[in-house]
């Protein structure tokens, strides 16, 4: 039956994927790696450049195997902080297009760019390609379609085309300068089912190894063949998943692009082995942890309404306490003072500490409203914090240290990015 209401305009979903993410960041930062087969990972390949793929190296392959396939392979352990930073830049560029950005993985984003009846998907995709190429210096593959499934499959088509080109060394050099159309596949609305038909069943979400094996036995390998199967039959075979498979195979995917929820808290912690009892060192470490957390807070453009401090004594007993602030803030000084105050209240036993941590919570988005009567002192502090953040982002966090952090530098190793703490969330 025809609906009373006109059907809503088709959605426009972009799927953005970075080409060989970790490897291209490494190649971008070190010119010596460009044009060479590069793999990032320890034990297994986490990411490999297109040059390495030509030798048959694939993601998730064991490194030993990869080295056998490709003798000149350059293997790097990877700098995950760096990749996160690039991913954040990418996310920010995408946010310029629409607030509806879902990060499925660091280098794997969905954007809902639906704009009523006008089509802006293609223009948005081209802008993204340009901007990311010039601002971040990495290349993307983008799929555009009426839903997440179609967009993701379209991205796959781009990647396959790129792999084919890469196998021809003469064309590979031109890849970087290829026209935007080369990095983009658009599936026009209405052609979803047709487009999916020739693809292998494995592109459908929910079609895992077991489902595929059962379909194989029925001699069903392509999406088109799944679409031809009656929905009832699929439901009988696979239950609820079957119904979904039938919908997906017809190019129908109702999943929404779900933007990330704002962080609820930001925490930094470290453990001490052996436990430490030097109060100056403990306070310096507390300050350092607060500074790290606050720097991330400012980067996210959030403010905190309170600080939680937690600690664990040498005998594994722990304590924690929360200090609420009167006004939400991003300022190091206010947060440090609150954390110190709370530490004094909860550090009641005369025992060395095994663990120390801070957590900023609850969080609020930063105030955007500007003031009629500017407060010179506050503006000065804001500018100072901004400068500090910029310097640290560029030259590493420990390029600037507060005075009492010198206590830390005497007893801890540090590199450009940070002190080598014993907690993975900081040193990874």
């Amino acid at each position, binding site marked *: 039956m025809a609906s009373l209401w006109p059907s809503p305009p088709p959605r426009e979903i972009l799927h953005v994927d970075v080409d060989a993410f970790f490897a291209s960041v490494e190649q971008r930062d070190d010119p010596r790696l460009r044009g060479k087969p590069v793999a990032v990972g320890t034990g297994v390949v986490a990411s490999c450049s297109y040059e390495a793929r030509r030798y048959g190296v694939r993601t998730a392959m064991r490194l030993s195997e990869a080295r056998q396939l490709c003798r000149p392979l350059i293997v790097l352990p990877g700098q995950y902080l760096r990749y996160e930073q690039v991913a*954040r830049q990418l*996310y*920010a560029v995408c*946010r310029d297009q629409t*607030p*509806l950005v879902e990060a499925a993985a660091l280098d794997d984003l969905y954007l809902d760019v639906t704009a009523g009846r006008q089509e802006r998907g293609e223009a948005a995709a081209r802008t993204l390609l340009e901007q990311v190429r010039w601002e971040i210096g990495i290349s993307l593959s983008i799929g555009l379609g009426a839903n997440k499934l179609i967009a993701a499959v379209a991205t796959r088509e781009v990647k396959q085309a790129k792999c084919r080109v890469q196998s021809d060394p003469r064309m590979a050099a031109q890849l970087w300068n290829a026209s935007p159309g080369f990095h983009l596949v658009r599936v026009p609305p209405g052609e979803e089912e047709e487009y999916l038909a020739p693809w292998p069943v494995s592109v459908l979400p929910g079609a895992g190894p077991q489902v595929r094996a059962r379909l194989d036995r029925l001699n069903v390998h392509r999406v088109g063949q799944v679409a031809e199967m009656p929905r009832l039959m699929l439901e009988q075979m696979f239950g609820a998943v079957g119904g979904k498979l039938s919908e997906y195979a017809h190019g129908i995917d109702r999943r929404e692009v779900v*933007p990330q929820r*704002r962080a609820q808290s930001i925490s930094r912690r470290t453990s001490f082995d052996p436990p430490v009892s030097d109060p100056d060192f403990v306070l310096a470490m507390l300050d350092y942890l607060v500074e790290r957390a606050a720097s991330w807070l400012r980067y*996210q*453009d*959030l403010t905190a309404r309170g600080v939680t401090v937690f600690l664990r004594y040498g005998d594994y007993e722990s304590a924690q306490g929360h200090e609420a602030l009167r*006004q939400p803030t991003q300022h190091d000084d206010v947060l440090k003072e609150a954390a110190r105050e709370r530490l004094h209240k909860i550090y009641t036993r005369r025992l060395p500490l095994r663990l120390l941590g801070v957590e900023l919570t609850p969080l609020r*988005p*930063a105030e*955007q*409203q*500007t*003031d*009629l*009567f500017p*407060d010179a002192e506050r503006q000065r502090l804001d500018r100072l914090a901004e400068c500090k953040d910029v310097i640290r982002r560029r030259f590493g966090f420990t390029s600037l240290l507060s005075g009492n952090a010198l206590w830390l530098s005497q007893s801890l190793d540090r590199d450009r990015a940070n002190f080598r703490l014993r907690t993975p969330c900081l040193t990874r």
Partner: protein
Amino acid sequence: MKAVFDREALLQAFQTVGGVVPSRPVRPVLANAKLVVEDDRVSLKATDLDTVGISYEVRGVRVEKPGVVLAPCHQMASILKEMPDEEVTLTGDEQRCLIEGTASEFEVPSEDPAQYPDVPGWNGENHHQIAAGVLRELITRTIFAAAVEGARYALNGVMWELGPEKFRLVATDGRRLAVADAVGIMHGKHNTESQMPVVPTKAMTLIERSLTDPEEQVFVAFGPNEVLLKTARAEVYGRLVEGRFPPYKDVFPKKHTARVKLTAGPFQAAIRQAATISDPESRGVVFAFAKGKVTLSSMSSQAGRAKVEMPLQYDAKGIQIAFDPRFLTDMLRTLAPDTELTLDLLDENSPALFRVDDSYSYIVMPLARGSSGG
């Protein structure tokens, strides 16, 4: 004390002074209002001992025996509200207060009237005089802009700037500023331009509520720490907010690149439409002024997006500026829908100035657009 009251009038009196009585008073006696029954005049007084006090004349009374009695204010109001009678008889002493109707009777506890603090009365020799209706308009046009709490400046009230030819009320919360002007008559040397007294919001509400007859002339006087207002029926006392009012004249924009003419009603309707799509995270509405129209748009990651167009006369350079929509609707709400106003804009980071005639100015700071996280 014994007297026969018109129930409606007594109820109204208790409700009016009820605004003063705190829900959790610092001293139990302050939960009461003081009913002073004299042969020729009956008045109801209340104070919170801290910021405000009021003395309100009760009319429609037949006095049988003069006297003073304390009655629990909120309780009295709810009793009187429920009674069906036209007239009620009140009898009271230090222990209790008796309210009688034809078919009902209530007894509430009372206290020694001597325990109740004095409510400062009118003593203004030097004062200003203004029509109640005009003052009321000045208050509604400014009070909403006052801050709930002021950290650096005294912002949690309305500043009265009275001079020989000036009757001006100013309120700001540091983000927007409302300035309303009228003409008052000065009696004696009553000038507050150097004092810049700030009357707390609670006292302002009380003053506003006691201005019932728009035609009547009311009188206002300022002391070093207090404000006193006198109408035919009521005398209101308010303690001034301590602290300095910010140098508000400095924030008036000196120049503008665009001047837009607007009508309050349609403009407010457009803003309210655009503001339906906003959440605490993205409160802003972006106003894009271009030739012949303004486009209002808002966007939120959770609530979707909105776009509203409104035609207007505009032929300057295009400007895109974002505001917290509540700051604008707060102000527009106080104007009649057909009020004409002008809007002066300089650029996206500078304050915007709304003006109605020459008597009302409203300045709003825009929202900083820029990095919105990510």
